[in-house]
């Protein structure tokens, strides 16, 4: 099958006449769209769409909190104050994980 023959095949196929729509086709379509909601009806926003809208803001806020915590931990360590992680370890060993519990 060479290129010219393929082109010829396309040219012949292009000449094929398409089938005619039935007489009552437009009426059938109209019946189908009467079962549809009105054209200008506002679309309801799904929970996923709302999450999509909020996702960038939530991600930014979460990143800001993480950066703030790391900076605070670093700052406290540099200032000689027991760091945040040390504080949490101390708290858990003294209060949460004692043999008697809270």
């Amino acid at each position, binding site marked *: *099958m060479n290129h*010219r*023959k*393929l082109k*010829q*095949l*396309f*040219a*012949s*196929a*292009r*000449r*094929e*006449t*398409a*089938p*005619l*729509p*039935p007489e009552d*086709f*437009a*009426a*059938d*379509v*109209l019946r*189908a*769209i*009467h079962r*549809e909601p*009105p*054209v*200008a009806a506002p679309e309801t926003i799904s929970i996923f769409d709302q999450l999509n809208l909020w996702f960038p803001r939530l991600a930014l806020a979460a990143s800001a909190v993480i950066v703030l915590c790391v900076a605070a931990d670093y700052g406290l360590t540099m200032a000689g104050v027991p760091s945040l992680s040390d504080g949490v370890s101390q708290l858990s060993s003294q209060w949460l994980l004692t043999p008697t519990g809270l």
Partner: protein
Amino acid sequence: MSDDAELLERIRNGATDEFAELVRRHQSRVFAILHRYERDLHKVEDLAQEAFVKAWRALGQFDGRAPFEHWLSSITTRVALDHLRKEKRRQNEIGLPELGEDALDWMRRGDEKNELDARNAAELLELAMRELSPADRVVITMQELEGRSVKEIATVIGASGVAVRVRAMRARSKLKRALEKIVKEKL
């Protein structure tokens, strides 16, 4: 007779029944597009109805920058693409259609002087195009049979112009191989 823009305005303002006039104006084109992908007339009719209903649902998004006909053609081609994807999954179950002797004779002949009649050519192409992926078939059909631009094809299949060109080149090679395979199998 008013143009599409005026008609669309009236439909948007609540004259729902005027959509039938819009259907009558564009139904031949919609049927012609779909017939390139589906030869069963009942299925073509169902798909055409689906295309018009989808256009109706999306009417609020039509901004009028391009002619309504182009917008509707894109919707119709996407309906055809979805249909091809569904058909591809059950292609093995339905088997392949028979091909006329005229088409096979034309394929076997080396000369290019004799032309194949339109119906046989379309059936031969239909058979060979079953070897292509749905997106490849849409690209080749739009480019070779409908004479659409790369930009238009790219918009419909959601790809870049370069991707369309590459896909078209590969699809054409696949199509040639498929046609050769058909002749070998029928010998």
